[in-house]
């Protein structure tokens, strides 16, 4: 009897230990969300930063553990202050989506600096603690590090609670979180509170990184990404902005993953995390443990900064068109290929700018639509032998249909919730692709996808591919512009600007969102299908979260809802990293800085929102 239970005791202990780390990240996110209405995507990078500072102290300088922890707390807090002062404060009161993007850029820079300073090789981070195991049940043990993590987790939770509920500064922070205008009126320096919260949140994240580094005896700069993802999921599960919720969310996430692996295996780990997240978002968007009532976010307006779209004068437009038309004739296949990449990203970005800008559903899962389109077209062409000229539009249709069905549960949500829900949906799609080996080839991917062709005419060379992509971009852009000028376009914008008002005028928000997603899904599916035939090989990594983030960055940079902006953004974000090739390993660093500066000075996007 007991022996049948033993693995479950193991799963539970393990889930709680990991859950403690998730909780530290989630509490930091919740704190920042509370006062700044911002999901801090740099949280994972602060986590890695803490781990590396810990490595310098513990492994390099050989300082004792308590000193190491103290240094990590101080250094991470300092980093938090820098992020607040130079990253998010200049964008205060502008758009939160711009601030969110800045935190992504800052994260990129921190990761890259760590990589340059400490090399990308993983490093060992020994804890120096005696390795004692305590038997808690026959066959199930718990170690000193497990206890340390549990101790630090609960101690910091308790300290934070005491600080926020008993101290005057804690009261001021809570007042700022509740209503920063009112807080300012009663004499609270809200900027200082923001800074303090960033410092607090960062020190929690940094300590989390140190502990997890010691727990695994393994740190590397790429650990940021997963930390950000899991922290956000935990914070969302608990209810954004709620501290007890964040702690419980972290533990629930850790346990779910651990039990999930126990039942189905590690290839499904993230599936459970994202399914739980999705269920919570659909059924209890206020979080598992918060009472409903207060709307989770203001419904309209501040998520996106509005501005007047910038119109390019006709001669400039004509000149651009000319350059675009003759580009492949310059006889530079490399430049043509960059052009193809820009056009494919442009196609994807146009579809996202419709969904995100015109309808206000800021999706962080757009890559899933490309994946569906790519796999559909590849499978039709490779397995059924259908002509590529037919399977590409079919890929678009499948992406439109399947994508709309998948995103449907998110139609009731707004703001950050849509972004996170769509990210969860996209991760689930990727995991299904990975694990549905019979259809998708699983981790072996799909190889030998036929190249672009119409009938017997081979169109796989760079020049033909370019003109095919250009043709598709022009057709889709004209269709989309026509759509936006029509009665339908006005209705879509009405739904975005005020869903409740639109509803009271008899417009059905869900129906209009569906129309936008069908159209957008088609465009994204086309982009994915063309990529698949261009690459001839795709697997579950080809269309990942990094692609979703990049496409969203393009859209925000260009100006939400702005078709020309999406295309300009695509050209810039594809061309910039190519231009920075000369600086080799500093490339990402320069790219991150350029991104931050662009957003800093044009938070409404280069060509303005439309």
């Amino acid at each position, binding site marked *: 009897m007991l022996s049948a239970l033993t693995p479950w005791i193991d799963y539970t202990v393990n889930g709680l230990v990991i859950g403690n780390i998730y909780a530290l990240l989630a509490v930091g996110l919740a704190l920042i969300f509370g006062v700044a209405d911002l999901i801090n995507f740099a949280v994972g990078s602060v986590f890695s930063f803490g781990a590396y500072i810990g490595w310098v102290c513990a492994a390099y300088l050989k300082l004792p553990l308590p000193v190491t922890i103290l240094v990590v707390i101080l250094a991470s807090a300092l980093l938090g202050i820098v992020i607040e002062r130079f990253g998010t404060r200049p964008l205060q009161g502008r758009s939160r989506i711009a601030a969110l993007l800045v935190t992504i850029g800052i994260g990129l820079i921190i990761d890259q600096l760590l990589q340059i300073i400490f090399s990308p090789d993983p490093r060992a981070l020994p804890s120096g603690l005696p390795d004692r195991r305590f038997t808690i049940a026959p066959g199930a*043990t718990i170690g000193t590090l497990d206890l340390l993590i549990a101790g630090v987790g609960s101690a910091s939770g308790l300290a934070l609670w005491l600080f926020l509920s008993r101290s005057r500064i804690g009261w001021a922070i809570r007042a700022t979180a509740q209503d920063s205008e009112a807080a300012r009126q009663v004499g609270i320096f809200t900027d200082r509170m923001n800074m303090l919260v960033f410092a607090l949140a960062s020190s929690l994240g940094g300590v989390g990184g140190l502990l997890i580094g010691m727990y695994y*005896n393994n740190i590397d700069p790429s650990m940021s990404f997963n930390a950000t993802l899991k922290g956000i999921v935990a914070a969302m599960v608990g209810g954004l902005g709620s501290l007890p919720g964040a702690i419980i969310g972290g533990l629930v996430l850790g346990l779910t993953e651990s039990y999930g692996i126990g039942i189905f295996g590690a290839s499904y*780990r993230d599936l459970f995390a994202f399914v739980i997240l999705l269920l919570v978002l659909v059924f209890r968007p206020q979080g598992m443990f918060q009472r409903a009532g207060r709307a989770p976010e203001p419904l309209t307006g501040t998520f996106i900064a509005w501005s007047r779209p910038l119109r390019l004068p006709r001669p400039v437009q004509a000149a651009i068109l000319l350059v675009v038309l003759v580009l492949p004739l310059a006889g530079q296949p490399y430049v043509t290929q960059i052009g193809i990449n820009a056009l494919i990203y442009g196609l994807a970005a146009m579809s996202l700018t419709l969904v995100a800008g015109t309808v206000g559903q800021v999706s962080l899962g757009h890559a899933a639509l490309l994946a569906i389109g790519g796999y559909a077209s590849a499978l039709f062409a490779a397995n059924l032998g259908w002509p590529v000229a037919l399977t590409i539009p079919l890929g678009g249709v499948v992406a439109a249909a399947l994508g709309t069905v998948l995103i449907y549960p998110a139609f009731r949500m707004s703001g950050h919730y849509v972004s996170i829900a769509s990210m969860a949906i996209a991760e689930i799609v990727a995991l299904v692709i990975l694990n549905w080996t019979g259809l998708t080839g699983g981790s*072996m991917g799909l*190889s030998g996808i036929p190249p672009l062709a119409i009938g017997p005419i081979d169109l796989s060379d760079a020049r033909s591919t370019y003109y095919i992509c250009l043709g598709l971009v022009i057709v889709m852009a004209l269709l989309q512009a026509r759509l936006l000028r029509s009665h339908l376009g006005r209705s879509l914008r009405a739904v975005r600007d005020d869903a409740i008002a639109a509803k009271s005028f008899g417009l059905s928000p869900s129906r209009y969102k569906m129309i936008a997603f069908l159209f957008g899904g088609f465009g994204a599916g086309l982009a994915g299908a063309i990529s698949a035939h261009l*690459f001839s*090989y795709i697997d579950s990594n080809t269309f990942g979260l990094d692609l979703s983030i990049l496409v969203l960055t393009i859209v925000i940079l260009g100006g939400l809802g702005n078709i020309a902006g999406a295309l300009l953004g695509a050209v810039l974000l594809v061309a910039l*990293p190519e231009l920075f*090739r000369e600086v080799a390993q500093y490339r990402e660093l320069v790219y991150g800085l350029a991104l931050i500066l662009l957003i800093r000075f044009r938070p409404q996007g280069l060509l303005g929102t439309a």
Partner: protein
Amino acid sequence: MTHLSRRAALCAGLGLGFNAVAGRAARADAAPVKVGVSGPLTGPLAQYGAQWKRGFDLALIQINGAEGGIHGRPLSYDFEDSQNDPRQAVAIAQKFVADPAILVELGDFSSTTSMAASPIYQRGKLVQLGFTNSHPRFTATGDYIWSPSLSQADEQPQLADLAITKLGFKRPAVIHLNTDWGKTATDLFTQAAKARGATIVDSEGYLPDERDFRSTLTRAVQAKPDGLVLESYYSDGALIVRQAREQGITLPIAAVGSIYSPKFIELAGNAANGIYTESEFFPADPRPEVQAFVKSYQDKYQSAPDAFAAFAYDALILTAAVLRQYGTTRQEFQAGLSKVSGVPSVIFGTIKFDPATRRVAGAKTTDIEVVNGTFSLFKGQTATKG
């Protein structure tokens, strides 16, 4: 150490006199012979690109020094960062194909990225030498796509020899990376293990960014295996053995050769002791090409080399040999690959391609056991109890 004395040390390691080098070294003024490299220098896989670079730079010292370049012309490489992103890899492919100075391309790292660029190399008739691409379909794109990577079909039976025949596992559980590489490796190991009379009692896949293996290990142990077999890289392999030992799992563990790296021992700590593996690349191997490589690596980087540096080193040495013997055009290089034989290699001893599969067969592995924190020759004992 100065540049000059480092070169001298290298030459001593190669058993060549310094004078011979000075006489034969490539002339710096001659037009260089160029190869292109597409690989991750930034992004999450940058650690492998960094190892490649070290391997390439060592190979260049030898090629342009002792071996006198390519008939007096220095060899150089143009390393373009793909971030392991297929979209950037296709652009790099176009760049290399369009640049007549580039005679052969090496890379990219993962099959997701390499295979996306393959059609462009094939159409452009520029050889893509995917020296880490073990995906079974990698060379299928066409006759310009070649891979001197380790064939899992060679390696897995040798791992099975070690784990099943020598160590005596009868009911192993396999824990494997769920990627094209890990999946191929596991399938081949399972076949080989069955042929040797063992039963695989459990097979657990995990994703490349996994760090937490405790639940996976608990699951594997439920199947009552008598040993664990890892199809992992060194970083995740170290995490697994460490967490297994912390969890009190005392089962013997055998792992595929790709865990072979000094980092494995650093990251796994004491848990590394008693781990069995086999490797094509073993620094204590007395073969002169291995000793020359290890010594020059240690002199230049003050650390021990790992298999990825060795792969890169071998790939560039092979490239130089083919360019030297068969000519410095893309076509001559392609034709030369099917004919070349006897090029010394750290991994294979000597390299010879099978022109039908465009792969190298016949890698021989050495059985290894970790003793007191160092990789040592396996002494042939059985590990299972009873």
